[in-house]
């Protein structure tokens, strides 16, 4: 394990967190809020610890491997949640540190679950920081930094990107990892700006448009009003719906459009399936809930908003879907598991994984009937490599293991099953609201410190797609790390010679 390299990378990342905090200071300057002093205190803490790590640690070996990639990635996300919580805690708006970390982790992982009962009581700068964490976390923290500075030597940056990027396999768009990261962020930036522009044009207050844009871009879901998004006019809700769905689309589709291959987008089966699922879910839910609405149009609007919000794992709400009939609720829970496309900012299991899993089941069924049948699983016209299939299967198994264990752990606090189950589903898939006591009209403040910690773990595990976080907590990662190469062998041999010499003496 290359500890110096891990330490130094973490140092750089902490310095970047200070930079990420700075836009919130501008908001405070605009609204003349004095409590912003605590933001500056947090920034100073970041800069001091970051500089100490960067200046004091001089790694001899700059190369990192898959193991360090996973560990750095998982550590960065826990560290960011902890440090990002300082403004909440220090300013006193969230008096409990664990709750503050939950709120920040929920921000960075783009979950959007909150423990705050009265959001409107927060000062503007804190609301801004809370929403801005969505935007930063959406495309990935390490990916952002990689676009600016080379974090590690040579090709080893790929290990960082692999650990952070959502989806079963990471593909570069251009040969260099740094350039690929830059490209992703450029597309992310353009989409964000266009949403912001359109929202402002639709006469939404600028502060609200900023925060909601961050929320949709990262598919996070923090709103600035206690009523969520229900208070905004219909046209703005429609804009939000469209952009939520756009941010849940695989970004390689946008790359194809930018490079002039728009037709090829239809060949990405994940994107077409994603839109098909959305359309199907909207139809089913509209049919199911139409009785509750005065006209079909309103029902479609709410169904579409909620489907878009849940499948992309954003978690905004315009209606309290906790009150919907159970068929509609179950569809939403299924969408929570499904999640958005790989290579987007959304969470969940990802459409492509579900597609491949279904194909695997069909293939096994076939094999049960024709045992000697040879069949290969194809995806987008290419035969899937065994390693990719194995990765997907392992992901699904570990996903449900974490899900089961988490529900068991938080059940100790004696809430009802629906609340516990959906609370874990909503955090592990980075959605935000669940059902019953954690539904869109309620929040997570009812949980005690232990359950909150479990949910923090779930959020980060869900964002990094389980394995990197499990690697971080696995004893093997830390134990049998050092194999020193030749000198290791030499020492062993020497002692053997010594034994031999001793034998001769006798």
């Amino acid at each position, binding site marked *: 394990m290359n500890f110096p390299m891990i330490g130094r990378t973490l140092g750089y990342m902490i310095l970047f967190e200070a930079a990420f905090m700075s836009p919130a200071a501008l908001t405070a300057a605009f609204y003349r809020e004095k409590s912003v002093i605590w933001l500056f205190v947090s920034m100073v803490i970041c800069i001091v610890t970051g500089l100490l790590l960067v200046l004091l640690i001089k790694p001899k070996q700059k190369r990192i491997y898959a193991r360090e990639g996973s560990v750095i990635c998982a550590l960065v996300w826990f560290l960011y949640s902890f440090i990002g919580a300082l403004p909440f805690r220090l300013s006193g708006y969230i008096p409990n540190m664990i709750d503050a970390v939950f709120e920040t982790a929920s921000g960075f992982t783009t979950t959007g679950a909150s423990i705050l009962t009265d959001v409107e009581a927060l000062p503007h700068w804190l609301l801004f920081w809370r929403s801005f964490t969505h935007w930063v976390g959406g495309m990935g923290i390490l990916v952002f930094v990689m676009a600016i500075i080379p974090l590690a030597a040579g*090709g080893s940056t790929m290990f960082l990107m692999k650990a952070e990027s959502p989806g079963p396999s990471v593909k570069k768009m251009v*040969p260099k990892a740094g350039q690929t990261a830059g490209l992703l962020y450029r597309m992310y930036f353009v989409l964000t700006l266009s949403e912001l522009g359109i929202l402002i044009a639709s006469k939404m207050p600028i502060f609200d448009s900023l925060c909601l844009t961050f929320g949709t871009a990262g598919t996070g879901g923090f709103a600035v009003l206690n009523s969520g998004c229900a208070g905004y006019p219909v046209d703005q809700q429609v804009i939000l719906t469209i952009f939520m769905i756009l941010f849940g689309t695989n970004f390689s589709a946008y790359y194809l459009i930018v490079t002039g291959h728009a037709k090829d987008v239809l060949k990405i089966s994940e994107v077409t399936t994603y839109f098909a699922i959305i359309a199907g879910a909207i139809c089913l839910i509209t049919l199911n809930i139409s009785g509750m609405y005065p006209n079909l149009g309103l029902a479609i609007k709410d169904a579409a908003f909620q489907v878009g919000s849940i499948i992309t794992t954003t978690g905004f709400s315009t209606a309290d879907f906790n009150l919907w009939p159970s068929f509609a609720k179950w569809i939403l829970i299924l969408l929570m598991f499904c999640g958005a496309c790989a290579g987007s900012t959304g969470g969940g299991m990802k459409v492509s994984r579900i597609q491949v899993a279904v194909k695997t089941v069909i293939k096994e069924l076939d094999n049960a009937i024709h045992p000697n049948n040879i069949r290969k699983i194809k995806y987008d016209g290419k035969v899937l490599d065994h390693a990719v299939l194995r990765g997907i299967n392992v992901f699904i198994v570990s996903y449900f293991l974490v899900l089961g264990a988490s529900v068991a752990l938080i059940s100790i606090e004696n809430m009802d099953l629906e609340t516990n189950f959906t609370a874990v589903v909503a955090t592990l898939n980075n959605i935000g609201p669940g059902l019953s006591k954690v539904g869109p009209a309620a929040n997570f403040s009812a949980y005690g410190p232990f359950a909150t910690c479990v949910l923090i773990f779930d959020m980060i595990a869900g964002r990094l797609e389980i394995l990197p976080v499990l690697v971080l907590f696995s004893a093997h990662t830390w134990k049998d790390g050092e194999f020193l190469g030749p000198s290791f062998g030499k020492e062993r041999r020497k002692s053997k010679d010594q034994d031999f010499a001793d034998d001769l003496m006798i």
Partner: protein
Amino acid sequence: MKIIIVGCGKVGETLVADLCHEGHDITVVDKEDAVVDLVCDRYDVMGFAGNGASYPVLMDADIENADLVIAATGHDELNLLVCLIARKAGHCQTIARVRNPEYNQEGHFLKEELGLALVLNQEYASAQEIARVLKFPTAIEINTFAKGKVDLLHFRIPQESILDGITLYELHEKLKCDVLVCTQEREGQMIIPNGNSILRSGDVISIVATSEEQAAFFRKIGLKTNSVRKVMIIGGGEISFYLAKMLLRVGIQVKIVEKDLKRCETLAELLPHATIIHGEGSDRDLLNEEGIAQVEGFVALSSIDEENMILSLYAKAAGVRKIVTKVDRVVFEEVFDQLNLDTMISPKKITAEQILQYVRAMQNSYGSNIETLHRMMDDQAEALEFLIRDNFGHVAIPLKDLRIKKGVLAACINRNGKILIPRGGDVILPGDTVIVITSLKGMNDIEDIFQN
């Protein structure tokens, strides 16, 4: 430049490592998934699995925007096909690695009519390298510049040499020889020495000098420079054939040991002046019988690396003065160094180096002025030959007044065929070629050697 490399074997991977280091955007194509994954994990490159000669695969690799395609698979015909398709699909330069000497005759046609650059015949290039070393047995490695006029000689300072313990300043006074020590390597660490550096026995140093000065220098330090007269070659492959031909031409006696009778007969036909021995190269009695102790040069060219190393060690023990070992898989170079066998030749590395020289030369048209490039001392140092253009910014300024970067040494100036070993008062003029030795990588222009 945007470069696509098709085929990621030894040659391909060496190219990826070097070109990636120089900051090019690289896409690799190989038919093995696992190889592509491995290379993508090790280097910052993009990879595609598939047949590099298929149009869709090349399109995936963005052939339309590529500047250069290098076909480095193990199959000549595939390489040629890749280049032809790449030419048609994109607007790029192409380099094909071709081994079969039969294509040598068509080299001109392929180059002119089809627009392919060929890197031909790694066996011939290897033989050339070995021959050069054998002709000058004290050297470990020889790099030539200025179209063969200047040699950069690497050799190990022998025990109890008069060079042991003196500084470079003293060297110049004591020997009164116009030689320049360019690099010094001790225990695997390479430095560009200055006047105060002290030489020790066992160091590997490289020197630049004209041929007359070389001879004088080696005579004064007491190293024998007379070239070998008898060479024993183990293994009768293509390299042996080329090598034997080259050595026989300059009057060196050659004895080839080959285990395949048919091959022996062919060789005997082709090389009437060589002694062809039919037998197992690893047979100790045979080697003794054929007089391994009496030869001055021993070249191990069998197809098994390990056997080559063992045989070379045996030859060393038998007292052979100059030993060349062919090693194909250059992975554990440090281990090889510890064996103290002077010269290691790796045909694949030589091929990769040739292709690299093509790429560098190609960059010429993009504003780089490199004439020749050599990697030395396990790639710790580079020797580059720059052409000085008219727009050179430091014309006629004495070298001692130029602010040259640390780790860079101007080793030689070639002015219209006259070789100068530069001293502080010498100047650089347009039209010169300057040979620069450096431990810094990725230099593309003579201006890169100066501090900003």
